């Protein structure tokens, strides 16, 4: 056994690395090549992306998961049928008769469920009381429309939970309808044939339209059918569905199927994409996998070489989607953190080293994901709230590992693992809003300021949180365990002090750079915007801690308590100010985030109170006095 000990960290790391690598290849397709379909490029929300991203992001927005459980009333042990996002999307776009019956719309608000007369949970009725199908909601569309019109007039910050749920379900239905109208007009049973009829009718139809407008004789039947077709295509193109038809010339603009077919009536050629997707849909509805795969392969071949870069970019993004690096890192951080905490109790060097190795592995995966994202987007690491969580976690892990390298007492490793875990959990929850690689609005469209101001400010956040996290460790170990001896306490306090210095530097520089950016974009260095104020509070807080320390107003324990206050001011700046619904940085926020923020602040208050308990009530100092006696 003893001989094995030095190898334990490496073996553990090897096992988890092997697990991560095994998730890189997708589940192979049985007959229909769903994975290959997922790699087809399209343009939506202003950027080129693969079908796979459209599928995952849409499903996240509608169902808050990246896969679809078609039998949600069954428990996990009853083996419910789970299908991939791609398979779901293909059904929505090509075979809505099936997709419309799947329970995909997540509705949580009970008032809304009552209003829409949706069934309650019941295994016998095959209902889980949370997920509903398009067909189940369809009878109440008018009601939802009416309620949504009313709620849209209310400022988003002043909406009740029910009103927010109305807007949410309305948005989900809109997105679903866009998807249904992406490749064909929704609910057309035999689109391939209808498309052929439409194309065949164009010459006669256009002639009839012209004659009608000129007041000449025309064929009434042809005119009516053609006018109906055009109306249907116009309705379809009005929905702002994804743009799936590549331009004739690679530098041109992508088109929606509806627009492309309307343009066909004006004499423009219908590109191969429209026909290819119609052929795939036809084969898919007939269950003919061979024909589907052949049509798919033909279409892919037609994109080469003009759209090879698009295909390549789409394929890289699919690989990134499949890799889910932040999820893998999250799992490994948890394991590392638990092992690290155990190392404090039995002071086992093997456990400590294992924790460090695992944090190292998670960090490598975390970094890979971060860089991969930057390359995909062509942007610095932080572009929105989601990526700020990922970057804050990453920065905190770096700091934790540096501390561990210096102090070698398992504290840095646990801080790294804990911060990595928490921030990635936050990121996972922020990703529910859909595409996390959205385009940057005009004023934000500058890589220079995103790379300097935003990176510096988020590094400031990360380091203030690390100091706060170390302080939490100090309090927990000190109050509840006997593991905080004088040396450990002193070393923790030194770490906190060092990190607070670091945090002061970055939050100050980041905040002032933000002012300089503001001066560059609208001529006001400081505008007292809530987000600016939030960052300023962090700077002031850190500066106050340092001055109190230098002036001898606080010592070890005071420093620790103040550092926990840093958690509160940083979470306020990161999330709190956004909830005010005012200012330049307001993103609009849900009740859920507010609830979590309040809970977090309350918990930090509790820790501050614990920190203020007299030393004789701390288990660690009881132990110390007992030792001395």
């Amino acid at each position: 056994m003893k001989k094995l000990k030095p190898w334990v960290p490496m073996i553990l790391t090897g096992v988890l690395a092997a697990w991560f690598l095994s998730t890189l290849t997708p589940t192979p397709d049985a007959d229909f090549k769903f994975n290959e379909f997922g790699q087809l490029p399209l343009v939506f929300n202003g950027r080129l992306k693969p079908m796979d991203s459209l599928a995952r992001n849409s499903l996240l927005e509608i169902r808050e998961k990246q896969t679809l459980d078609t039998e949600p009333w069954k428990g996990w042990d009853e083996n419910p049928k789970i299908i991939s996002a791609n398979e779901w999307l293909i059904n929505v776009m090509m075979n809505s008769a099936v997709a419309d019956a799947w329970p995909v719309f997540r509705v949580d608000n009970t008032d809304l469920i009552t209003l829409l007369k949706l069934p309650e949970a019941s295994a016998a009725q095959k209902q889980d009381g949370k997920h509903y199908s398009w067909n189940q909601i369809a009878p109440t569309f008018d009601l939802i429309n009416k309620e949504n019109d009313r709620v849209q007039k209310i400022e988003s910050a002043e909406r009740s939970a029910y009103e927010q749920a109305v807007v949410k379900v309305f948005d989900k239905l809109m997105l679903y309808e866009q998807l249904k109208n992406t490749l064909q007009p929704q609910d057309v049973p035999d689109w391939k044939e209808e498309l052929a009829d439409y194309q065949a009718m164009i010459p006669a139809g256009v002639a009839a339209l012209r004659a009608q407008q000129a007041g000449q004789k025309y064929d009434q039947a042809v005119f009516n059918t053609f006018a109906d077709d055009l109306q249907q295509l116009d309705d379809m193109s009005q929905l702002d569905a994804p743009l799936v038809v590549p331009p004739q010339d690679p530098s041109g603009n992508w088109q929606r199927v509806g627009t492309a077919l309307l343009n066909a009536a004006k004499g423009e050629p219908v590109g191969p994409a429209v026909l290819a997707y119609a052929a795939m849909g036809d084969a898919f509805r007939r269950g003919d996998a061979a024909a589907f795969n052949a049509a798919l392969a033909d279409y892919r071949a037609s994109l080469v070489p003009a759209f090879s870069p698009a295909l390549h970019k789409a394929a890289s993004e699919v690989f990134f989607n499949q890799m889910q690096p932040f999820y893998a890192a999250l799992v490994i951080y948890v394991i590392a953190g638990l092992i690290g905490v155990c190392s404090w109790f039995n002071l086992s060097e093997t456990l400590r080293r294992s924790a460090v190795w695992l944090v190292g592995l998670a960090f490598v995966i975390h970094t890979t994901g971060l860089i991969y994202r930057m390359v995909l987007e062509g942007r610095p690491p932080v572009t929105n709230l989601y990526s700020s969580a990922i970057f804050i976690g990453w920065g905190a892990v770096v700091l934790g590992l540096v501390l561990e390298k210096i102090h070698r007492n398992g504290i840095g490793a646990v801080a790294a693992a804990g911060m990595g875990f928490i921030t990635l959990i936050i990121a996972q929850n922020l990703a529910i809003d859909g595409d996390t690689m959205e385009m940057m609005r005009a004023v934000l469209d500058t890589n220079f300021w995103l790379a300097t101001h935003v990176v510096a400010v988020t590094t400031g956040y990360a380091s203030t949180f690390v100091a706060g996290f170390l302080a939490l460790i100090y309090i927990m170990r000190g109050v509840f365990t006997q593991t905080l001896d004088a040396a450990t306490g002193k070393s923790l306090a030194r770490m906190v002090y060092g990190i607070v210095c670091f945090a002061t530097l970055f939050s100050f520089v980041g905040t002032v750079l933000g002012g300089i950016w503001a001066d560059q974009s609208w001529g006001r260095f400081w505008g007292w915007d809530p987000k600016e104020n939030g960052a300023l509070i962090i700077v002031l807080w850190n500066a106050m801690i340092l001055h109190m320390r230098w002036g001898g107003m606080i010592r070890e324990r005071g420093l620790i308590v103040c550092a926990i206050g840093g958690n509160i001011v940083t979470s306020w700046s990161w999330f709190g100010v956004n909830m005010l619904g005012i200012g330049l940085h307001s993103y609009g926020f849900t009740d859920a985030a507010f609830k979590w923020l309040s809970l977090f602040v309350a918990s930090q208050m509790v820790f501050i109170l614990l920190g203020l308990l007299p030393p004789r009530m701390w288990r660690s100092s009881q132990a110390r006095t007992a030792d001395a006696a």
Partner: protein
Amino acid sequence: MRTLVDRLIDIFISLRLTVILLAFAIVIVFIGTLAQVDEGLYNAQARYFRQWLIFGLDVFGHRIPLLLPGGYLIGTMLLLNLVAAHIYRFQLSVKKIGIQLVHSGVILLLVGQLATDMLARESQMHFVEGQTKAYAESARSNELAFTTDSGNGDEEVVVIPGRLLASGGEIQDGNLPFTIRVKSYWENSEPTFRAPMMKNGPPLTTNGVGAGFDFHPDEETKSMDEKNVPTALIEIIDANGSLGDWVVSGWTSDDEMVQGLEQGYAGQVGPEMARKISDQLTQPQSIQTGGKTFTFALRPERVYFPFSLELLKATHTIYEGTDIPKDFRSRIRLRNPQTGEDREVEISMNHPMRYAGLTFYQYQMDAGQAAREAGRVPSSVLQVVHNPSWLTPYIGCALVALGLTTQFMFHLVGFLSKRKTK
């Protein structure tokens, strides 16, 4: 025996004072942020930040009776504290160089912000494509302008600041051969057309715009996106007696607001009639006295330049297939007769034009699909800022960053080498 002065000096150089001031700063910044929800950014700034003392707070509609130092007081005290500490504790040692740098950077930032607060002026230029302007307009302040022919082909303009109207009473100006008596003044107002077939109350005055329109006071707006449009009822009196009551209103000189009003009327009475109504609102008003004609209007305060800008093209680009704005860009022709300059400049988001001590920023734009569909000529608004101390934050930031880095490197190196020798 320690004198009172010694004790005062002790207080002013103490770290304890620094900490107290920082703590107050945190409280004020936090409250000033929350207050923006109810009071709006401008009012919250004026009440908490640009203030010496704060009497009572309002947080989410609850009044808390407290006396707190305002932003000005905290800033000034911090400045005194820093400067005093520097003077009394100054040691030129390598070890302290970082702290010295940090503190001089902070002093520069504080002084710079104070200077900006006193000296910076913001105004805006609103023009449509093809229009040339040699002045910018204030977004907040108004002026009552009297224009008359000077006799040598030029126009002579005498302006009375809007705040004089607001304070009421009688106004005299050496350049005007008459007195203005302010009868009423509303900071924000709303006009309604006196439709001929309707039952109208008595008009404010039968002269000029007052004959066709009623004006009512309206609640002052707190939002940053809206503005107050003032209206005043004045009487003009020359040596021979009264020249009548006149309504002067910001409404008559604001193309954008008039356009909005016209669109509203167009829905009720048709576009042609709406046009006539709005023409009536913008009809110039004038009086005659001493053989001269004075045309007058209440308009946004103007800042004239010795050069002119012409808007050549306003471009609003969006991301493919969305309405997310990608870029706003104004192509400008800059003409300066004094220097003989005549060149094209492009101003876009994050790329302002700095010229003649002024900075021109891309601010707003109406050149997208909505403008095209409504048949409006594309237009652009530039924010014009005059701020002589704009460089101070750049230098201050550099000093502080340099100082903090030096200081922490000293600490880190010291700490690590101590560990090694252990």
